[in-house]
């Protein structure tokens, strides 16, 4: 399915789904069965009661991503699927990072944490727990910088996104680079 020389990239897809038992299983089973590659997945309640929103970061070329969208949409419990383009969107992830810290390195780590607008969420004699929020790039670069101190544990939530012009379920959306596959499917 992934040919044609098109480039493999990370794409962000959100899905509004019915909040019923087994929905996550249906979705993840579809990804597994069709061999789609999930980079991250975040799930939580949405603004509507009984509906959850899932954010996927999926790796693939254009054609694969189109198939991901369509197969997500095909699931009965999935109500709407949108692919969001990165320039139009607020994208955030939360990470907790446990970093080895001694009396010599502690202040240097704290400096880096400050530059990143991150927080010290926990302190103990031999480590610090750093809490950082941001897009994936920011978290990656913080991780890169503190690696040399010794990263003992990393916990990440996966990316969640929101489009800047704040689409609501029933809003008319216009102009934006949004692809709603429920409707695109009708071409």
């Amino acid at each position, binding site marked *: 399915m992934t040919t044609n020389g098109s480039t493999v990239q990370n794409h962000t897809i959100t899905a509004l789904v019915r909040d019923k038992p087994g929905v996550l299983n249906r979705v993840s*089973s579809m990804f597994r069965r069709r061999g789609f590659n999930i980079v991250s997945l975040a799930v939580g309640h949405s603004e509507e009661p009984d509906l959850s929103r899932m954010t996927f970061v999926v790796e693939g070329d254009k054609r694969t991503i189109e198939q991901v969208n369509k197969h997500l949409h095909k699931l009965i419990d999935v109500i709407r699927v949108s692919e969001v383009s990165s320039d139009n969107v607020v994208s955030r992830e939360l990470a907790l990072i446990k970093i080895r810290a001694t009396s010599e390195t502690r202040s240097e780590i704290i400096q880096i944490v400050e530059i990143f607008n991150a927080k010290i969420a926990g302190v103990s004699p031999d480590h610090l727990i750093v809490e950082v929020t941001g897009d994936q790039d920011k978290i990656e670069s913080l991780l890169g910088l503190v690696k040399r101190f010794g990263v003992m544990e990393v916990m990440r939530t996966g990316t969640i996104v929101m489009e800047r012009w704040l689409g609501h379920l029933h809003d008319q959306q216009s102009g934006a680079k949004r692809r709603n596959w429920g409707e695109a499917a009708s071409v």
Partner: protein
Amino acid sequence: MGIRMNGSQLLCESLVREGVVEIFGLPGGAILPLYQTLPEYPQLRHILTRHEQGAAHAADGYARVTGKVGVCWATSGPGATNLITGIATAQMDSVPIVAVVGQVARASIGTDAFQETDTTGITLPITKHNTLVMDPAEIPQVVKEAFHIAGTGRPGPVVIDVPKDVQTEEVELPYDSFDEFYNALEIDLPGYKPNLKGHNSQIRKAVKLIDEAEQPVILAGHGIIFSGAYDELRELAEKAQIPVITTLLGISSFPDDHILCVGMPGMHGMAYASIAIEEADLLIALGMRFDDRITGKPSAFARKSKKIHIDIDPSEIGKNIEVDVPIVGDLKRVLTKLNPQVKETTHTDWLQRIEELKAEHPSHVIRDANQLLPQLIVKELSEVTGGDAVVVTGVGQHQMWAAQHFTYKYPCTFITSGGSGAMGYEVPGAMGVQVGVPDKAVWSVAGDGGFQMTMCELATIVENRLPVKFAIINNNVLGMVHQWQEFFYDKSYVATAYTANPDFVKLADAFGIKAMRVTDKVQVRGAIEEAMAHDGPVVIDFVVEEEERVYPMIKAGGTIEDLVEEPDFAPWEVAR
């Protein structure tokens, strides 16, 4: 006021409202409350199968031939797992069935209780949808939605898993009658809105391509049959004089004896059909999914042509083959809008070219031989019945011969497990078909291998007085696999010979079924006529050569260059 009912009654009442008449099934502990309720509903006819796989395949055959949703029941655990082959078959071929399965009581779920299986978990990837009902009050809603999901859009199987205590628990409904209650239920599926209409501007683009094409072909698939778009397909083909190629499951969507019919392409398709696809400048794919048995190597498939793809399932578009004009919609509706816009033309040269191809590559011609050729059996069957029969097959060589050599003149007369390729379909599938069309002749063209997988259903057939006729193409071998071993494994025939097949005549006799054995080609016609004259099921054991091959053949993943046509001699003649 109000009515009190238990879960089983709610389920039966709902099935009755959905127009269910026949149910194929087999009881067990976890579904007993439901079964014990059946006597209250004489309008539901239960057909007791010998195996749950039979129940699922029968529901599938019934659904394919009637266009209604087929229903099967099974108990939890092994009953549910025995359904799996049938459910997967229905999923692959988009057949609407609803399977109701018993489950252990709610409190026991997750404890590995006796005969507990995670039915919704197991069937999740092989169903269009499934539901575990934890509250009896939800049963009518679940049933209503199950039939809606199974039968609309791209059809498919739905499983309803019902714990035993949900079947027995009583609920009070604030209505005077169940009818009133059921009618008031609204389908609440915000994520399921099949697009049926087809986009007008896309249709216009398609019309333009059709008008401009010089060498167009139509590829007609199962979707034509589901949509009942026979007349619309024919109208399009005749108006613009476009040859029609039918996929395996598209066979009988267009009359084989029509001058524009070019037959089946692909792995074992007619050579001229496969070549026509390669030469075409426009493919009009209708309700088909570019299966690998048709495309071979996708990147080398029909490179010269533009492509229009009309299908009800958006996820099929662009899945295997990139297309120029996709249209999502129901074929009958889309073609009804498209046909009037298409220009009348003749394509004389192109049709002339197709005739040439047919003459140069006579794939449909059966060679002269003294032996009893399986192809000839199918051809005689076609002639004796005049095409006025429903042919059901198993999977293998006999299936391909049945696809190639029978002239299907009437809609929906060829029923076969295509996507799954499930051997064993030939007995219960034919049984379900016969239940669906009791007044039609139903012929099962069976493999000796597949027949033995599900022949227990002969008992069900007798019990229910179903006059199914079986033509066992008995080559004493798993023929198609044997053929692959010859072609691709240097004739290393491992585990394909059946050296101790039962005596099928005696076997049928044991079931109380009339049976005949045919070993010579002069007996074929007489045997078929005798079977047709018999008012009841018949088994004919056609003993044929083991070393007969299906031609043409394009190897898996191959291209038109890999096309192998029938040699002038049979392989077994060389072997001697």
